[in-house]
């Protein structure tokens, strides 16, 4: 009974996830001419992911996603920066954009494809990546799960560090106002 309901719920969320992402893509592509753009699309997409995580749980989502959203964000930043730096190769100023006008496309009608779009996609990736990363990290950590998986811990922390979800050190736990032991 409950299994069926949760199955329906999950299916509905998946459908919603798909729809929101399509909408986000649409927002991203039309951004140059109508309200929208990489940032808005990225946030919409991130919210869709959050919805999905609510439905299937953070652990499960991590299994499904299989990649580190932080890397996606870094890739997005790299994409934006490389898009900007590409004109340097031709001796043009940093961030100069070039474009082409495409007409007669299905669904979208006419489309303006330019390096500005690549830049905007970079923005999109950064926003999706970091919004997901911080939401998931905080969500896991506040639920007393390990915020970072082992591989991420290797990448984002020093070997001598420990996750904060554990009990804090003795000194802080007792009373923050006690002087540190090295003085007494």
């Amino acid at each position, binding site marked *: 009974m409950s299994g069926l309901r949760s199955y329906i719920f999950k299916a509905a969320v998946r459908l919603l996830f798909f729809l929101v992402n399509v909408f986000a893509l649409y927002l991203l592509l039309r951004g140059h001419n109508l309200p929208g753009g990489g940032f808005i699309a990225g946030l919409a997409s991130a919210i869709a992911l959050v919805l999905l995580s609510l439905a299937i749980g953070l652990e499960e989502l991590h299994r499904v996603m299989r990649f580190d959203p932080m890397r996606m964000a870094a890739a997005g930043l790299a994409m934006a920066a490389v898009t900007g730096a590409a004109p*340097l190769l031709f*001796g043009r*100023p*940093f961030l100069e954009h070039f474009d082409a006008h495409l007409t007669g496309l299905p669904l979208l009608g006419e489309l303006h494809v330019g390096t500005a779009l690549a830049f905007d996609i970079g923005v999109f990736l950064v926003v999706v990546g970091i919004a997901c990363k911080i939401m998931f990290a905080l969500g896991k950590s506040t639920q007393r799960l390990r915020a970072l998986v082992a591989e991420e811990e*290797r990448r*984002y922390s020093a070997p001598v560090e420990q996750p904060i979800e554990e009990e804090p050190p003795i000194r802080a736990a007792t009373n923050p106002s006690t002087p540190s032991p090295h003085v007494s």
Partner: protein
Amino acid sequence: MNWPVAPILLPLFTALAALFWGRPGVGRRSLVAGSAAAQLAVSLGLVCATLEGRIFVLGLGAWPARFGIVLVVDLLSALMLALSTLVALASVLYAYAESPTRAEHPLRAPLTQFLVMGINLTFCTGDLFNLFVAFEIMLIASYALLTLEADDWDIKHAFPYVGINLFGSALFLSACGLTYALFGTLNFAQIALRAAPCADDPRLWVLALLLIVVFGIKAGLFPLYYWLPNSYPTLPIPTSALFAGMLTKVGVYVLLRIFGTVLPHELAFAHTLLAVMGGATMLLAVMGAIARNFIRGILSFHILSQIGFMVLAIGLFTPLSVAACILYIIHHIVVKSSLFLIGGVAMRLNGTDDLERMGNLWKRTPWLGALFLCQALSLAGLPPLSGFWGKYLIVVAGLEQAQYALVAVSILASILTLFSMVKIWNGAFWTGSDRVPVRTSDWRWRAMTAVVAGLTCVSLAIGLGAEGVVQIAIEAAERLLDQHAYADAALGFLGKTAANPIP
């Protein structure tokens, strides 16, 4: 043509590469160090080129100033770039000497490079809102570094730092808005042209004061400096050297730029305010330094005290005093960073930087002592070390302006600086105690000392070869104050619109 963007892009790409690389290793270390060296090389190249009178202007996206953002690198900017990249290189190398690869925090390298990117962008940008963005890059990177390797004891001192700077950012953003409404533009050069006729408009005065508050927070002026002295000592030593050397000087640089290039020169009351705040800062902060009894605490307060000197020099606002300020900045960045690094070596040797429990260093490590003595006396402004020339010019400018009280305050602050430096020297280097260990067994402290020695050589060169540096500073000051040349250069970039000029 694209050179001004190189000191910003190089750190950005280095940070990204380091992020993708993941774990620290020898390869990643060499990459970051190589990039830091390349940044320094590019900046030195910019200094050489700007010395010949060139001003680099780059409209990003090929847009001229009235549409987009321009980066403008004049002599002062190039100097600041060279200094920031120099200190960043020293900090990187020192960090490598200090800790083995496996103990390095993987995020330190990318965050440091992001910080350098923000700092460099601040020096290059010719646009007020872009300056805000640069500040935010710098600030958020500094927050992240402040809490990166913090333990439960350190972490709480990050909180006031973050809080005060958040408030400052909100004020800065509001100030950007006000500027846009008043002048209809955000470009420095255009603001300069449009603001020139309104020197006696009270709205401009209020804006100038608001900007003093905003940048006074960053620079660390008297009632606004509280975020600094307790937060810097919680940083790891190489990072603290970078912070100590660069972050507050960014504020001073922006004050110089805003009052020298952007706002009209007739704002006498704002200059007086700056001078008075500078005087108060140098005296009260040096008293704070005397009240501290651990090296990093003393040095942190000294940053502020020296900021007082620089801002006093801006406040006097003559070409000579502005040159003195620039000279002082050049000296201070190098000396203060190396003092933090020397403090770090001393801490490593003694196992603490609490002066009550240090000692024996002069006997055991005379080289370190000689380096400290050099830099400490330079900081106190004893001749012929680098700190003296800036101070001398400030005294000359102050006496020329008949600001006897401020000159007296600066002399007093110098004496007190000397006093607190002697305090460190007596406590850490001269005190002889059997109970204080000096751990000279590993090689790391030698490597660390070698990095410091490099910086000390630079500072000695500044002091003994003052002729060249003084000339550069005077030149930089003249160009900074030449608003028309700046505006002509910045607005002369036409980019995409060159072919079909738009009325």
